[in-house]
């Protein structure tokens, strides 16, 4: 299975119809609220809300979603457990060596875990239900993102699969030539050096050629342009905004 298939949904739900710029702004606002909020129960409600959005409305099959959630679950546990076991606190529940669980560290750990879960789920909902091209079209039209940034991002995205192929070819070349790496940190640096150099060299050349090709197609910085995908505000954007705000308010009042 290639990267493209992996990120193709089983069916396109209503979340796909929401203007990606609206989604971007609302999710970003929610991100900020979660980030600065210190109340673990509110954060937990937000986490549940984002998980529901992801698992019910992203349009991906459960198996795929569980696969995508693995890194999120790992990050929840690592952040929460570290804080619970080693965090500072007055009211000590249990202590053994350097491990010290206190009431404060416990709640702080939960808060951190819920926060990273909320970030993860919200981020996934956003990534999985917005095509990058549509996002940039919306950002250009609704949020006035300059076209030069939008198109350089989209052009860069096109180069990613080529880079992945090259990494694979490079790794094959190492096997064929009998390259062995040292163990530990030193090996990591050797790998970095040997993998990065040719990939960088090729990517820089490619980026230059692409930039010239774009200019040859009359792409001009700052010039007016029309849009192949005109994006506007639709009723569904309002519905989505209302839903997200009322869910967040619900999360707040239930805590």
């Amino acid at each position, binding site marked *: 299975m290639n990267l493209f298939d992996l990120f193709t949904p089983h069916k396109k739900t209503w979340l796909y119809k929401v203007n990606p710029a609206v989604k971007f702004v609302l999710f970003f606002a929610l991100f900020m609220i979660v980030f600065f909020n210190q109340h673990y129960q509110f954060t937990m409600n937000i986490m549940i809300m984002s998980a529901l959005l992801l698992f019910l409305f992203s349009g991906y099959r459960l198996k795929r979603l569980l696969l995508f959630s693995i890194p999120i679950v790992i990050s929840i546990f690592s952040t929460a457990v570290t804080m619970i076991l080693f965090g500072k606190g007055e009211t000590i529940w249990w202590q053994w060596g350097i491990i010290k669980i206190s009431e404060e560290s416990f709640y702080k750990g939960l808060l951190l875990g819920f926060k990273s879960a909320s970030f993860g789920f919200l981020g996934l909902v956003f990534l999985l239900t917005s095509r990058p091209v549509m996002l940039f079209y919306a950002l250009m039209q609704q949020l006035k993102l300059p076209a030069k940034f939008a*198109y350089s991002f*989209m052009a860069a995205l096109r180069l990613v699969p080529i880079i992945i192929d090259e990494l694979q*070819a490079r790794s094959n070349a190492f096997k064929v030539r*009998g390259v062995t790496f040292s163990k530990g940190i030193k090996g990591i640096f050797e790998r970095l050096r040997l993998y990065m150099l040719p990939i960088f060299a090729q990517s820089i050349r490619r980026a230059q*050629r692409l930039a010239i090709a774009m200019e040859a*197609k009359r*792409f001009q910085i700052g010039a007016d342009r029309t*849009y192949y995908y005109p994006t506007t505000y639709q009723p569904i954007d309002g519905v989505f905004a209302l839903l997200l705000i009322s869910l967040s308010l619900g999360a707040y009042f239930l805590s």
Partner: protein
Amino acid sequence: METVNDQQEQHSNTIGVTNLRLKFPGERSLLFKDLSFEAKDSEKVLFLGPSGCGKSTLLQVLSGLIPNSIEVPTRQDTIQLPKSYGFVFQDPDTQFCMPYVDEELAFVLENLQVPREQMDERMDDVLKRVGLDVPPHSRIDDLSQGMKQRLALASVLLLDPDVIFLDEPSALLDPEGTDQIWDSVKEVSEDKTVIIVEHKIDHIADWVDRVILFDDSGHIIADETPEVIFEQYQSEITEYGIWHPNVWEHYTASESFKAMMKNRQSSTVDLVKDTDRIVHLQQFKGFYGKKEKIHVEEASIYPNSWLTIIGDNGAGKSTLLLALMRLIQASGNYTIHGKAVSLDKKDKTPPKELSFVFQNPELQFIENTVKDEVAFSLQIQGLSTKKVEEEAEHLLNAFRLYVDHEHHPYQLSIGQKRRLSVATAFAHHSDILLLDEPTFGQDAKSTYEMLEQLEELRQQGTTIVMVTHDMNIVEHFATDVWTVQQGKLLNGKDTPDEKCETKVGTHHESI
């Protein structure tokens, strides 16, 4: 009054430059010194010359890309830029900034501020004109390289250009793709001026009106009709490595080729017996993930042979090489010198009897100097430092890498990079050298140099296995041919002799 206007009209479609001087920053000498060139309305002009003589740079000057997009200091007495131009570049993979065909075409239309309502119609129109018969919302990555170049041409047509510049548009294409792009160019450009830089000129040699011949130092040495050029400047064209229509004819009539073939005949070995075979495959399959991508019922590779693997794009030729090198998952029976090769999932060490040359040499370089690159392959065989030193020196000379051996491999020319990559693979002293299209994208001169080099290795006892699209190589160099079609090897069971019977052409080597 009217006549004056008419004249101006005519003149405005002429493009050209007089007394151009151009120097790349950091270079010691001028690339062009007082160069003048002019192309009339709807003229078709071909630039020929050795690599690095500045043909592509001149295209960029004539289009205005230099100095508007690429900052290079230039000076000229007069310059007449086209009112509207389109530019098709060499590499199909670095011309598009969007993932889908329609979105890429839309990018051009948006730049021109074409209203949304007119976009679909214009896209359909240009796709039809270049013969790109796919739904507009198709992924560009799913197109063949030839189709991608057609798309590049289509997006250029949206600009409604008076002049089309083509910078080696077929250099990185296989024969089928080359046909595709030139058919399309001829189809769409009747009323347009077309300026072409290209080394592969089979399709266009008698289509262009004028050929401009450059020398090494960027001077125009001839500006004539194709007939005159191909008649009077034969030796220059051969020297520059141009793939002209008679290039193989000339080459096979050359002394060096005849001597080589004579050598072949005298050193023929007796008919090979099955027991002599180096590699034997039975029900051999190669997989990408869980998908079977190549299936070989039965086939053998015999010592001292030159085996070419042919087949359409995506048929599975390169996959077969990867499976033989154990770089992808494989199953079945695979023996080398009668000993079974482990096809265990976990053990993916390449068999040491085989070495591999990748298509892109840069991806297989690992050291910082040319010499270390070769030395690395020798060191891992456990040779002493002194021996490594001697052997590396010897190999670099044998592969005619007469450059500063302390240079970084990336500083070499493309032909030299290829030779270095073959040298490093050869340094393993394996029985079989596998090569994935080693002459792809190279000019005629370096192609013949490479082929002669490989023949020399074969004479010394190395078996050559190479993937190629070039039927001339198959005809003139191969002793054995495998044809791969839709993931299956078709003729693995035939003996080499039988296959030579069915081979194109007349060149039958006895084996």
